[in-house]
């Protein structure tokens, strides 16, 4: 029995244990403060579903040795272009959502390919360069949002009649299509079945991919490029594939996120899109040398539950002081620093 416990503990690792304990404490406080638990849990589940695929997007680049994909905004932008294009045509419901995906995916493939070409030239510094690629792309696209020939009045600035708004509501197009699909309530907790299902499908697909020939080749490239080369694997092609896959997942991820959020955010909003995802996968126990689907799932659940619960609880305890945004930033960036500097045990 104690062996089993120890085993479970070693599987989990100390950082995750601390966070779980912290979460339990927060729930206890919430109960004591007579907060509405149902809402907290519902929000947590929704946030997990919203962010799952964005976190999943970290795995391919980690696996192929490129590192954490700080250039996630590249894919996020592709997703947003898909979303606004689909909205421009006035498509509603699932038609709108899937059209956005169909447009976003080829764009993400192209953008991911170019991004991968760039990363290939800066081997060893992918993460730093990726961060700045993300920043540059977001800034560059600000001009596109202003000048792009979108004409749907619901989307463009009311004054002047030109340029997309900073935040566009999805109310009348595909807002919450996944969340509401087969949704139901138990104990006052709303379960967004479609959202969780959609996320689950992608987790399963990626898990299967890493057990396929190409997925194993990608993992091999990440763990020892020379071994990969001597096994006849084209190292550069695998790295490129990893980056493209990550970019495509980011594009899909932001669509899922936006439909659940109910808005598409343009301009500088995607600037920091990578950081919560990076923090999640790291907190899940992934490292630059090893990252699994399990890490992505645990990380998404822990990080986003923490964010959802911690803020209202602290807010209630501190009597209305508005520290939510500050706390959110400290938490996600603090976790990135912690995880990246932590000495890895072998």
């Amino acid at each position: 029995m104690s062996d089993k416990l120890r085993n479970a503990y070693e599987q989990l690792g100390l950082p995750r244990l601390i966070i779980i304990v912290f979460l339990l404490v927060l729930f206890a406080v919430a109960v004591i403060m007579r907060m509405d638990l149902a809402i907290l849990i519902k929000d947590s589940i929704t946030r997990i579903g919203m962010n799952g695929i964005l976190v999943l997007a970290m795995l391919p680049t980690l696996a192929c040795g490129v590192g954490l994909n700080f250039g996630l905004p590249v894919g996020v932008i592709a997703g947003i272009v898909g979303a606004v294009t689909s909205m421009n045509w006035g498509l509603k419901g699932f038609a709108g959502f899937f059209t956005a995906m169909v447009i976003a995916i080829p764009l993400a493939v192209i953008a991911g390919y170019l991004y991968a070409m760039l990363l290939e030239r800066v081997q060893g510094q992918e993460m730093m360069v990726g961060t700045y690629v993300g920043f540059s792309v977001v800034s560059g696209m600000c001009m596109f949002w202003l000048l792009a020939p979108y004409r749907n009045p619901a989307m463009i600035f009311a004054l002047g009649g030109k340029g997309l708004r900073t935040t566009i509501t999805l109310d009348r197009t595909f807002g919450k299509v996944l969340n509401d699909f087969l949704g139901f309530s138990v104990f006052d907790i709303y379960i967004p079945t479609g959202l969780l299902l959609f996320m689950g499908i992608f987790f399963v697909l990626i898990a299967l991919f890493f057990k396929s020939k190409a997925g194993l080749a990608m993992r091999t490239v990440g763990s020892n490029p020379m071994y990969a080369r001597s096994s006849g694997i084209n190292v550069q092609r695998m790295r490129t594939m990893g980056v493209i896959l990550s970019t495509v997942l980011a594009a899909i991820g932001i669509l899922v996120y936006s439909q659940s959020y109910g808005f598409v955010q343009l301009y500088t909003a995607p600037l920091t899109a990578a950081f919560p995802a990076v923090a999640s996968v790291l907190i899940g126990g992934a490292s630059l040398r090893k990252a699994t689907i399990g890490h992505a799932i645990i990380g998404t659940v822990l990080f986003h539950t923490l964010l959802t619960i911690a803020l209202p609880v602290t807010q209630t305890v501190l009597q209305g002081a508005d520290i939510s945004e500050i706390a959110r930033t400290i938490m996600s960036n603090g976790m990135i620093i912690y995880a990246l500097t932590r000495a890895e045990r072998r």
Partner: protein
Amino acid sequence: MRNGHVLELKGISKGFFGTTVLKGVSLDIRPGEIHALVGENGAGKSTLMNILFGMQVIQDTGGFEGQVVVDGQAVTIDSPRRAMELGIGMVHQEFMLIPGFTVSENIKLNREPTRGNLASRIFGHRLETLDEPLMQADSRMALGKLALSIDEMALVGGMPVGHMQFVEIAREIDKKNVRLLVFDEPTAVLAESEASLLLDAMKRLSSEGIAILFITHRLDEVMEVADNITILRDGEVVSRMPRSEAKLGRIAELMVGRKIERPVLPPRKSEPSDEDMVLRIENFRVDMPGERVRGLDLSVRRGEILGIGGLAGHGKVGIANGVIGLYPSTGRVAKDGSQIPLNDPKQALLSGMAFVSEDRRGVGLLLDESIEMNIILTAMQVQGKFLRPGALQSLRLEDRSAMREHALEVMRDLDIRCTGPTQLVRRLSGGNQQKVCLGRAFTMEPEVLWVSEPTRGIDVGAKQLVLDLLVKFNREHGMTIVMTSSELAELRKICDRIAIVYRGQIAGILPPDAPDVDFGLIMAGKGAALEEVS
């Protein structure tokens, strides 16, 4: 200088983790003497030098036994700095020069003459001004001793290799108290003409009273300049002699010679012959740093075990790496008459070859993956084994049960000692890791297996096991094996023929029972002298 020796080493012994590397080595050098220290790779020369220079690695591994005596006084050399203070200088095999600095700056590095100035008076001597005219004058003098006209103001980067070597020497002789210079394979990277200049410079230095310890493989150079010769083999001094009594053939024999017990190997149905060549390599060049292959021709008989020997740096390791496509190569490699595209590992592997790398941890293994994965991955990627059926080749899923079954079989056949097929390879011993590498190659069921340094860094028992495995697969499956090794003894144990590589080409192919002297001479680039001796 009571007994007239500048340096005496007395009964030096040293072991690393239970393996004895040096056994009671003694050595005396007089001022102005050129003393050659010759021996094969692994004879213990480097370890001896590490002791002489007080390198950290010696203390970290438990120190050494014996005594170092300089000018008749026993000394403890516990750091390279102490060696320098005692007047012992080293000319390195790899250049330790800063490319962006001028020749004189390199020569004077960290020993620059300086003058005081205002800032240094306030903030201390670290801010003193360099005395450049003096630096240049000193450098000119040092270079002058070598009778060499190198511009002391030229940048070191972009200089010919030979000149860099001289700058390195100039730096050592510029040190005022230098009495003993160690030359570690100084001519290995030089062209003939540069090498002879260097030998002249050594003679000139010795005539000024500086003692020289000359470490080399090249016996003709030894014969040209050395006053005395010490021959080291397996960590022991096997012989020492003045040059007047030395014969090239005798040195070569002593250097290589050891009793070879060639076990009786199982017979084959038909012996390999020149009639049936499985592989032809022509005008082959490989750009592998430190192991360049320069226009080599070699044919491999079907079903044989071909050994490739030679000294380090001559390119023996480059051959397999080039054929398999890991390092850029040119030339022609044909298997069964059809040419194999170069620089493409996949094509090389598809043509029925497999490779066990000399760099086990760097190339041969995925240290953080399971034994199972290490064994099957190459065959899966190249040959599509261990995959479940599927429409798209690259998206076919792994076949877990086939993988496991095969891994267990390999573990049993090769006797891999582990806790199970899912154990991480990092946790295995060197010998077992090597068996995993072999298992990886055997899984490919190759017709031709390239094995590089299969016994490097593994213990004695495991070595024998690995060799036995190679013989077994050769005999039972008719697998042609090309084995590269620095250990001539093991090549002579199991190979049918042994090709010796010298300067990137095959200098000769010998039967395993050829006399020691022949191997020694060919390795030392004296293949032509073979006829004279015999």
